[in-house]
């Protein structure tokens, strides 16, 4: 999927989905928490344009964008409606309402809300794919803040020692919740990988085509060499960490908003294409939320 329109469409889907979600939260229709992917869309769109449908993905708390981009290439896609239903706690949600925003699973896509803890799990998945000789790789997502968790380094060590086919994607939006990277990450991000003999590729861009190219190289390296790889993407989170918790200055937000992946990619489409994307996505989102809203809540099953 290298088609400019498709890339734009995925990014737009994520953008509009998250915007709608934040709106639903602010009107009190949704409760709990959510972490918008707005501003980082090019990462997911670029990466999942070069993965296989059967690759195994472990995502983190900021998983909606990853999920929506995941499987975008496959005929059945990953369904915004099922995600919306999950976020509303509906029985039809991805995991029947049990997980909510941070805890979803669909096909080979998994997420969990404990920072860092998913990384050895993803590493084990890579091991499973390796020994099953499936040819598939594992991808695990982490933010800059999650570089603080020790279990990451245990995982990097094992992935490297055992030659496991896993791509660690660091999305460095320079903040962990409200903590700027300067207060949380010493040394360098790349150094955290090379310390374990894991090569990295680093990009500071919101251009989905550049990310796609980098991801192609990174994914290719993992698949070819059957070894771990670190893809470090410097990026920007436009919205608050979860909902109302933004401590950044208006000036800073304005500055990063200039790196809007949608605006960067838009000129590669015709006006008509963009309009078509907008209207298609608007309809999809509207349907997804309407259908999810109408769906029933789950009931307790008899438990083991």
């Amino acid at each position, binding site marked *: 999927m290298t088609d400019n329109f498709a890339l734009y469409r995925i990014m737009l889907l994520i953008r509009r989905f998250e915007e709608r979600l934040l709106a639903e939260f602010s009107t009190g229709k949704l409760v709990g928490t959510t972490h918008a992917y707005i501003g980082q869309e090019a990462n997911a769109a670029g990466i999942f344009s070069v993965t296989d449908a059967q690759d195994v993905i472990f995502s983190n708390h900021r998983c909606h964008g990853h999920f929506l981009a995941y499987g975008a290439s496959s005929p059945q896609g990953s369904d915004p409606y099922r995600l919306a239903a999950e976020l509303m706690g509906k029985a039809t949600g991805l995991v029947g*309402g*049990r997980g909510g925003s941070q805890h979803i699973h669909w096909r080979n896509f998994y997420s969990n*809300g404990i920072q860092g803890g998913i990384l050895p799990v993803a590493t084990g998945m890579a091991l499973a794919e390796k020994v099953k000789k499936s040819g598939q790789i594992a991808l695990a997502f982490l933010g800059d803040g999650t570089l603080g968790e020790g279990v990451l380094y245990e995982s990097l060590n094992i992935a490297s020692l055992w030659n496991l086919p896993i791509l660690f994607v660091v999305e460095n939006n320079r903040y962990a919740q409200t903590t700027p990277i300067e207060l949380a990450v010493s040394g360098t991000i790349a150094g955290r990988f090379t310390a374990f003999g894991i090569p990295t590729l680093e990009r500071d861009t919101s251009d989905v085509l550049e990310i796609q190219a980098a991801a192609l190289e990174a994914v290719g390296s993992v698949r070819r060499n059957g070894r771990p790889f670190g893809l470090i993407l410097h990026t920007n989170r436009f919205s608050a960490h979860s909902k109302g918790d933004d401590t950044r200055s208006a000036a800073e937000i304005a500055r990063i908003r200039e790196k809007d992946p949608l605006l960067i990619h838009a000129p590669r489409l015709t006006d008509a294409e963009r309009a078509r994307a907008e209207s298609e996505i608007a309809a999809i989102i509207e349907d997804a939320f309407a259908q999810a809203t109408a769906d029933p809540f789950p009931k307790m099953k008899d438990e083991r």
Partner: protein
Amino acid sequence: MKVKSFVIHLSSFIYSPMPTVLESLNQALHHALLTDERVYLLGEDILDPYGGAFKVTRGLSAKFPERVLTTPISEAAIVGVASGMALRSLRPVVEIMFGDFVTLIADQLVNHATKFRWMYNDMVRVPLVVRTPMGGGRGYGPTHSQSLEKMFLGVPGLRVVAPNTLGDPGQLLANAIAEDDPVLFIEHKLLYTRPLLQASQGDLTDFEIQQCGETYPTYVLRISNLESSNLTLATYGYNFELVCQAALELLMEREIFCEIVLFSQLSPFDIAPLLDSLRRTRRLLTVEEGGLTLGWGAEILARLAESGIQANMRRVAALDLPIANSRPLEDAILPSVEKIVDAALALHGT
């Protein structure tokens, strides 16, 4: 044990001019930092203007920038660092952003901080406080809603304390900080916005309150104008609110007269005031939000069983399941006023 008595009106749960639990805790931290320069705060995102995920540390870094340390996302190391500080005579207070993450500090608490004193033949002390918000009811899903304190009750050398709206949460925290040994301080998320209860007086639903102990008091509440009560409800923390509502409902609609025994210290266990109440009522319901099996209530019931007291006892607790995100499921899993009332009725039937 010193016993004090006062009276409280249960409707004080609403429209109170009293400070909230959050304000009380926040004030206590202000005061601790102000009055004792050995006190340090460590935690994720605790700096102003954010002031922590639940705002308990708000305003502190602005006043004490040198002693309020925002940390990387490294729960194990934060507690380890704090216990090193404590070994070297500082008084660190750690915030773990969500109680669900105490699993990450288990080794530092169990095999380090709490072991040092005894293992080193009482030659060291570890004045460490770990504060953390527990509990559900906010739709945060399976990794941000648990009440995992039960894993740490009974850990040798560890005191586990939980504030409530009846006692003074700030004072409780101050006492924990003054302690020379490690304290795990469990704050239920739903407590933060609650105003402290205010002693008042005057009608049928007034409770007369006995306070047992000073530092981490246990409160025994009895409806003042009633001679004999026939059910004891034992609980701690936020669930006190549910228990009070259940007690009122049982009183009004079923004429079941409850005593409430409210604990501030969860571990080590001291059940003397409860045993006392139970001698009067002969029926006990423990109420807690953690999962049933080997929850706080298990040790309570076990000790009571060992005491030889003749009483009917039951526990109300969460189902032994993860806490679902979806509201109806979360409600089905966690305790509620209704479940407490039902259990009380069932127990009463026996």
